[in-house]
Each structure stands twice: as C-alpha cells, then as structure tokens.
C-alpha cells in the first residue's frame, strides 16, 4: 500500500523527524517499507518555463523549434510534442537534469542539425502517469523559474508499505499514523470535522434491513441530498494521485479518500435508483447473474452476500457495486454505505468470482466494526462540502449485536519466558496503551487489557507479547552467545542420500535437478500419474512418475547445445496413484518414493594421445551400477536379471533385486523413445528405488588380515558355441571349483572365422590361494585340469592354444 508522508502529517506531528528515520522505524516495527519515492529529490531540478516562441524545425516536419524562457534566460529547445504552443507554461528539464523515466541525464543535443538546450516534459517522462500524448501544460498561476517540486507540490515522500495479513488495521493512513504514534510516543489525532445536518430526517428517505446478520453484522447508511457531481478540488486529486489512484469525480474520490484515510471501504449509491429507497442485505438462494459497475456480467453462486434495493440486487456486498445504482453525473441524492461484512464471506465471494478489489481486500482481512459510523459521517461531511449537498439528519445504523472489545490477560513473567529478557512493567503498560489498549484489571503479576476492535489480531497473551516486542524493538532483544545442546540421540535422515551423492560424484556423475511437474507426454510412459488441480500450464499438469523422462529431457537439451557426452544423476521423489484408486483421499492412496537415476550418453573417453576413444555402452552402465552397490556394501545382496525384449522404456535391460524385490531397472533406451525426445545417440540409464535400497541393512564390515600366503594365477581360453553366455560359464566354474578358487576375471572375448562358424572365444584369468597355507603346484594343477575337463565337457568347448 502506498502511503504519503504529507498525508500522514495530518494526523501526527512528525516535525523534525527525517523521512529516512520514519522509513527505518516503520520497517523495524513490522510495517515494512519496501520502496520510497522522495519527490523533492526527484523533481528539484525541473523548473517551470515559458514557451515564448514556436517555429517549425527546418529539417523535420514533426519537430518544433521553441524559445523557452526559464526566468533567467531564453533557450533554444527542440520539442516533438504535437501540443506545444507559444504562451504555454511548461515543465522544463535544463541540461544536467535526471529524467525519472529511463533514468537518463539531459545533455546538450543536436537534433536533426539544430541544437537543443533541455527538454520540455510530458507526464510519463516525470513518472507522474503513463501519458505521452503531449507535454504537460501547466496552470497560468504557476511562477516561471521556480522548481516544480514547490509549484506542483511534488514535495511528498511516498512509501510503499507491505502490510502483512495480520495487520488490516494498518491499511490506511490513520492506521499507519497510529503505529507511528506508538513508536515515537506522540499524540495522534483523528480528522476533525463538524457535521452539518439538515432538518430532514434520514429515516424518512431511506431504510436498511439486514436479513443475513451473520455475514453482515453492521450496516451504517447516511444520505446526502442535492449533490453536484463534479471534478474534485486540487487538494483531493493530489492526495489520490500521490498514492497511485486516478481521480474520477468528487463522490467517488471522496469514498476512496476516506477508505485510504480511515480504512473503511465505502460505497455510494444513487438513492433515486434504489427501488423503494431501500437497502436489504441478504444471501442469494439460487445462482444468478449481476452486472457490476465495471460493466461485466458476473455469475453469482447461491449463498453470495448481496445488497438489494426493494426489487433487485444493487451490489455484491464488500466486493463491488452494480451498474444499476452507480453514481453518474446526473446523480442528485446519495446513500452512503459504510458496513462491516464477515471477512470469510467476502473472501469466499471474491475467490469464487475471481474478483478482488480494494474493498474486498480490506473486508476479507477485517475492517473495524466500530469504525463504520465515523467513516460514514466523514464521507457525508466531505460530500456535502465538496458537492454542495445537504446531509440528512441522523444515521441509519443497523447493528443488532454489538461486537465488543476483547479482554486479554498478560503475565509479566511470561514476557521473559518468550523473549529472553525483561522489560520494566511500566514500559510494557505504556506500549500497550500507546497502541490503544486499555487496562481493565491490574495486579502485581498480571494485567488484563481491553483491545480496540480494529486490532482483530490481538486475542491472546502471545499477541500482546508480540506487540511489546515489536514496539520496544527486536534490536533490544539480546543475542545470546551460548546455546545448550541436548545429549539425546541425533538422527540424520539424509545421510544415505548424501552417501549416494558422494559415490555418484566419484563415479564421475554430475547432479541435476528437474522440475517434478511435467506434461502429459512425459508422465504417461512411466506410471500411474497424479494430476494437479490448478496447473500453471499443460506442460506442468502432472507429477512425475519416474525420474527417467526428466533425465531424458535434460539429455536432449544438452545435446542440442552441443554437449554430447553426459554422465548425469538425479535424486528426487516420484509420485504414483495406486492402481485401484481414482482420487487421493488419504496417504494410502498413492506412493511418494525417492528414486535415483543414472544416465549416460556419448563418449566414455575422448581419444587422447595415449588412449582410444570409447563410447558408453551397456557394460559402462552395468559397471557403474555394480560399483555403486559395492560402495554401499550391497553387492552381495543384489542379484541380476537380464532381458532382451523391448518394454516401455528399454530395448535391452537388466534389473537388480533383493529378496524378490526389484531395487532398480536400467538399460538401453529404446529407439522409439529416443526419437520422441529427439535424441540422435544411444542413451543408457538406470533407476534405483532409494526407499528400498536404504531399507537393506548392509553387512557389517569386519577386518580381514592381509593374506600371508602367495596367490597363484592361471590363464586359459575356451572356444564355445556362440549361444553360451558368460553368465552360464562363470556360474558353472564357481559351482564345480573348490574353495581354493578365489576370483575369475574374463580378460578377452572375440569371434573370428578361424575359430569356426558361430563360435567365440572367452579367456579367463583364475586366482587360487588359501588363507591358511601355501598351495602346492600339484594342488593347483589338479584344480586347474579338473576345471578344463569339466568346462569342455559341459559346454562342448575346446581349450585354445593347446
């Protein structure tokens, strides 16, 4: 909300306090000043000048060559505005002036060959409005040569204050002044005015009835007759433009002015357009339509609180008036509405209609129920004054159940318990009194305060403590330099994921983070997706069901910018609706699982002067997966299965499982999917379920003494039928060997016509040793020859090189 410092000074004496101190103190007491516009600083260099002469620019049709008098000298100035004429008083920016719009400095310039010594300004250049249709032509009365800061009263300080939802009372100049009064411990005065009422009684001209008293606890109305609707006086227009409002006519401007002054939203009805001169407040029973004063037809759901006259709806309560009862230039008699509506009701209506106004914004936060009457009077008085009208005698004030001031107890000892320091009781009481609270009960240890009705946020002791803390200043709360640490058990639920990240990095992977909100095409391939009710766009309408689509998107994007060799991983949650569910009604209807994805594409190594280029392949992926599990000490626990058939993502894949549960799946992404992502190269990826993985307790590692006896190695190669797999051979070797065999490593694999048709050679390196003794040559030889004969027999293989 924009607040004018000059306006505030109507209610509180701030003489001698620099504006930056006010800004600082407001911010430090909870009314955060987000931006400050110091007009005096901005406009000090602009002066009023007089256009003495206007000629055509010799080289440009649309430009004028003006002689401008600045009070001290005549200057030649080029002007492009269509409305510049000799005899005008204008805003002139001499050389060196900083123009607010675009933040540039005026310099001597040559425009189409002619020199120009300054600029005649339009409103937009001064940041006064968006108007760039022509230069600003000033009133005759202003003095040439004077700064516009004074002549146009551009000498205010405008503060943009962020008002938190708990402080609706501060959504007005009076509200801010009230806080300032408490902060600076100064007097603050409400606007003073004398109501001049006619002898006609208001009750003879209008009536108000509330049917729905729950949603409209109070409705105050006054009537002003024979009003002239016209342009507002300068002072009023000035007040409004300073805070960013556009003046319309005196009646509308006054209702706006009083709202920004007192915080009470007001509505002015054309009394003669109210059937039966009646106001009835009620909730609609059926859905209906209503045209608001912005000429829009709006659908009102049943249960909307509306204002009706004797026949029809005339306003949506607390949100916006209707076109049918709006003030026009011919309006004579005005009914002023100053009401208190139930905040929840206004919010509901505003949300349902998608219509938020300054009025609804205030009502849904809480306006002061005690403030409707003074606000109505203030409005009536101003309308009568500025519209030459006649205020009817008395008010119609329907307020069946008075909202009374709450009483809140305060234990002084509790202040220290919460804040950690003591504040003298007298100071505590003084602060609360300055905020408008009254002492209702007092004892040594405890007081009870009544809270004015405009402070809806103060209901409990803790609310009082907050007020005391903020007015006394958070800076005064000590910053202690010692904390106590409990010796109880500490947990770190993130340690497993941290370990995973560390391993992934060591394995050469870079971590990525993808948006879990994805489009239809990405989410449909991998699971039973969950939809967002109110997505921002169709590209983000679902929650990811797997990390793979996001990873593929990242790969595609990188390949597009020339990054073709990638090793990426991500840890994130994926969401799936349970297969038998349509809709989430409880936490049991869906799963949220933390997953890990590894993705590889392109070259594993570039060619170097020492090394051949190598592309990533399925074995790169298998190696990574195995290294990861080994580092987690889960290599023994996890088992492999291999598949050659195509499925939804892969055309070649394998799984890791433990006790029948699949820990993860991965393989080569199938061509069709690569095409969908526009990826022109092979991609390998593996996705682990981290919830499962972390649930497996790895074996406790135990120290093993380094081997004391020598190891013996034997190499050999067999020629097999091509259909024999590595896995078959290796399993058989382990199965038939004694415990002296400690490791088998395949070190060569090749196919060659010389081996025979559909044959292949696999070469193995075997390691034998015992932990208890040195093996004899004979022992090893016996093992080795047994292995040769068994393998050749089992697979119909031949030993090579013999």
């Amino acid at each position: 909300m924009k607040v004018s410092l000059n306006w505030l000074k109507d209610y509180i004496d701030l003489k001698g306090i620099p504006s930056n101190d006010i800004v600082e103190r407001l911010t430090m007491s909870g009314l955060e000043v987000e931006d400050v516009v110091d007009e005096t600083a901005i406009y000090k260099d602009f002066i009023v000048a007089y256009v003495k002469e206007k000629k055509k620019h010799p080289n440009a049709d649309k430009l004028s060559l003006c002689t401008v008098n600045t009070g001290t000298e005549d200057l030649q100035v080029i002007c492009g505005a269509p409305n510049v004429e000799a005899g005008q008083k204008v805003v002139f920016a001499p050389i060196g002036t900083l123009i607010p719009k675009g933040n540039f400095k005026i310099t001597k310039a040559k425009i189409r060959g002619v020199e120009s010594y300054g600029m005649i300004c339009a409103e937009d250049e001064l940041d006064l409005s968006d108007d760039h249709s022509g230069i600003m032509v000033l009133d005759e009365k202003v003095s040439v040569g004077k700064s516009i800061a004074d002549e146009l009263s551009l000498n205010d300080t405008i503060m943009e204050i962020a008002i938190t939802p708990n402080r609706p009372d501060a959504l007005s100049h009076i509200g801010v002044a009230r806080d300032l009064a408490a902060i600076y411990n100064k007097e603050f005065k409400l606007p003073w005015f004398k109501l001049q009422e006619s002898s006609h009684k208001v009750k003879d001209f209008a009536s108000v009835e509330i049917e729905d008293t729950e949603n409209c606890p109070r409705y105050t109305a006054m009537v002003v007759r024979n009003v002239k609707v016209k342009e507002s006086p300068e002072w009023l227009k000035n007040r409004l433009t300073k805070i960013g409002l556009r003046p319309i006519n005196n009646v509308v401007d006054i209702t706006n002015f009083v709202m920004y002054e007192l915080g009470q939203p007001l509505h002015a009805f054309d009394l003669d357009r109210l059937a039966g001169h009646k106001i009835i407040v009620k909730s609609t029973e059926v859905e209906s339509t209503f045209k608001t004063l912005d000429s829009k037809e709006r659908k009102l759901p049943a249960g909307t609180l509306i204002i009706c006259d004797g026949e029809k709806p005339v306003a949506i309560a607390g949100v916006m008036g209707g076109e049918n009862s709006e003030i026009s230039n011919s309006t004579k008699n005005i009914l002023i509405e100053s009401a208190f509506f139930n905040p929840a009701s206004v919010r509901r209506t505003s949300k349902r209609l998608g219509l938020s106004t300054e009025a609804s914004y205030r009502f849904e936060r809480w306006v002061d129920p005690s403030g409707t009457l003074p606000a109505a009077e203030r409005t009536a008085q101003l309308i009568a004054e500025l519209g030459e009208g006649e205020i009817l005698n008395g008010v119609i004030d329907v307020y069946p159940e008075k909202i009374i001031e709450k009483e809140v107890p305060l234990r002084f000892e509790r202040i220290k318990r919460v804040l950690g320091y003591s504040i003298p009781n007298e100071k505590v009481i003084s602060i609360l009194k300055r905020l408008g609270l009254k002492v209702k009960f007092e004892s040594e240890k405890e007081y009870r305060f009544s809270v004015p009705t405009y402070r809806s946020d103060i209901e409990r002791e803790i609310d009082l403590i907050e007020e005391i803390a903020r007015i006394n200043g958070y800076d005064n709360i000590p910053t202690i330099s010692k904390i106590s640490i409990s010796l109880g058990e500490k947990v770190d639920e993130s340690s497993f994921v941290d370990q995973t990240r560390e391993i992934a990095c060591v394995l050469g992977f870079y971590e990525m983070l993808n948006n879990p909100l994805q489009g239809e095409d990405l989410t449909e391939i991998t699971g039973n997706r969950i939809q967002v009710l109110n997505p921002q766009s169709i590209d983000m309408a679902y929650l990811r069901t797997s990390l793979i689509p996001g990873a593929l998107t990242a790969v595609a994007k990188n390949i597009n910018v020339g990054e073709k060799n990638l090793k990426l991983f991500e840890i994130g949650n994926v969401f799936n609706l349970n297969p038998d569910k349509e809709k989430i009604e409880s936490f049991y209807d869906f799963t949220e699982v933390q997953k890990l994805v590894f993705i590889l594409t392109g070259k594993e190594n570039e060619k170097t002067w020492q090394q051949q280029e190598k592309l990533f392949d399925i074995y790169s992926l298998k190696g990574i997966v195995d290294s990861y599990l080994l580092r987690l000490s889960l290599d023994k626990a996890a088992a492999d299965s291999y598949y050659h058939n195509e499925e939804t993502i892969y055309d070649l894949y394998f799984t890791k499982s433990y006790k029948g549960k699949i820990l993860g799946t991965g393989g080569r992404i199938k061509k069709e999917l690569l095409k969908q992502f526009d990826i022109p190269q092979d991609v390998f990826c593996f996705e682990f379920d981290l919830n499962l993985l972390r649930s497996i307790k790895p074996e406790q590692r135990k120290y093993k003494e380094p081997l004391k006896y020598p190891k013996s190695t034997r190499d050999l190669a067999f020629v097999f039928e091509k259909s024999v797999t590595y896995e078959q051979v290796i399993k058989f070797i382990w199965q038939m060997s004694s415990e002296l065999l400690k490791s088998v490593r395949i070190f060569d694999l090749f196919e060659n016509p010389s081996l025979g048709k559909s044959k292949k050679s696999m070469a193995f390196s075997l390691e034998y040793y015992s932990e208890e003794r040195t093996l004899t040559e004979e022992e090893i030889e016996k093992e080795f020859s047994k292995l040769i004969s068994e393998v050749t027999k089992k697979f119909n293989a031949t030993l090579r090189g013999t």
Partner: protein
Amino acid sequence: MLEEKISEINSGFNQDIVTIKDQKQLEELRIKYFSRNGLVSQLFNELKNASKEEKPVLGKSLNTLRNDLTARFDSLKVKLEISKEKEEDKIDLSLPGTRRIIGSRHLITQTLDEIKTIFKGLGFSVVGGPELESDYNNFGALNFPPNHPARDMQDTFFITEDFLLRTHTSPVQIRVMEKYKPPIRVIMPGLCYRNEAISSRSYCVFHQVEGLYVDTDVTFAELKGTLVSFAQQFYGEGLKYRFRPSFFPFTEPSAEMDITCFLCHGKGCRVCKHSGWLEILGCGMVDPNVFDNVNIDHEKYTGYAFGMGIERTALLKYGIDDIRIFFENDFRFLRQF
C-alpha cells in the same frame, strides 16, 4: 715383486676410472685391464712363476684385486648406462596427464549441505518429509485458518481439496512434533512448490531448510543467537544483521532476518533494492496454537522455528541472476560448480 705390481695396477685403475666419461672410454678401460692380454690377466700369468709357498697368498691377493676392480667397473658401467637411457628416452613432461572426471553435486545441494553442516554442528538432527502433503499439515495445523488471507501468501498447487504440493517445509514441523517428544532440535530440508508465475526471480519449485527447536526454556534471544551464529559461519564473520518484525501464522512473535548486502556493503544496489539489506530468512517463536495442534503443552514448552530458501541464498552467494538456471540442467552450468 708381484705384490708391487698388484698395488701398481690398483692405483693405476684408480687414476683411470675417474677419467671415464662415455661408453668408448669404458670399453678402452675394459680392454686395458680385463681383456685376455689385459693387465689383470697378465698378472695371473705371472703367478705361474711364483714359488709354491708364495702362490696361495699371492693368488688370494690377485683374486681380491680382480673382484674389487670388476665390481668398480660394473658399478661404473651401470651408472653410465642409466645416464645413457635418461638422455635417449627423455620424457616430455609437458604432455597432458590422463584425467579422471569427478562429478559434482548440484549447486543447490552444495549450498544445502553447507547449511546442514553448520546446523549439525549446533546439535540439530536432520529429518525429511513428503512433498505431496495434506492441507492440514501444510496449513491447518500450522495455524492458517481455513479461508484466511494468510493463505494468499503462498500460492498453492492443489491435488484435491485436501491434498496439495507442500508450499513450504513447515509441515515437517508438524510431523516431527507428532512423532517425537521435546526436546526437539531438527532441521528439515526439502523441495517445495508454489504456483507463482515463472520469471528470473521466481520458479514454481524451490528448496527450503526449516529449523525447529522445542524445549522448556527456548527464547527469542536464543533464536537470535543461533541464527546470527549460522549467518556468520555461512556468510562470513563481521556481517551486520537485523531482525525485523514480520508475520507467519505458525510463529509469534515472527521476524525476518536481514544481513548487510554483501554486494554493495550496505550502500544500496539493484540486488538489495537500494535498501542496503538482504532478507535471508523468516523465523519466530512457535505459536501456541501450533503446540495445541500437536498436543505439546504450550505453557510448559516454548520453541522457535525458522526457514530459508536455498535458491535465493545460492543466487546471492554465487552472483547468479536467473533462478531458472537451477532447473535447466545445462551441463555447461553444472560443470562450473
């Protein structure tokens, strides 16, 4: 006679050997002493003429001489060979070595880890919670009344009327307080969602770290002390800070913590909106209504809570001007950190 010759040869060899500089000279030395007609062989020939009594003694001396000279010759030979190798197989040390690629954690993770480490050092546990939350945990239990404007502070993605994507990590507070008894001292990092227009300043997902401490004697003063200690460890010693009153439904009194803008050192710049201050986190004392909702006695216990956005923190710390870069996974970005 023979003995004299032995000592003569010995001293001659000593003089010769120090002059040997290359293979050719070495070969000449070998021929002079060890060839068939070399000086050493000649002496052995002369041994035949020696008397029976002298022979064993002289023989022994001769053998010692030969072994000694041979050993010295061999060691010189090895030395010369090594230096020959060095010259011939000179290694070009300027050739690049074989690099191993070590990946890296995402900058957001690195920032989060840094924060985590500091709070773990202050005795905090680390706990996580789900991203798809109930409206109750995300709002209701945290003292956001239904249909209240405070909800407008956090634009929400809804899944159903009662389920949503958490808008902050604060629902984990509720889960923790429902599960554990005080004293509770935890931080709760995680991903959050806000239905805000995507721009260089805001994105629809972001990370937060939430902190919570509940015990019988927790005060605002301790909250200040803890967070100042954190800020000094994270942003550097000697920074200026301030706590400014603010509003969060689940804490009261509430505050926002600002530190001096480290880009302009408080003079005012674009990043700090010319205020000289940067807001780094929100915090406050746990609202008694929140304690009531998790059945913790708000008379007996007090507590504080705080929360900070990681993306914003990383933007500031690393001088990044567009928040979207964190979720684009551009390898050229990922590799930088």
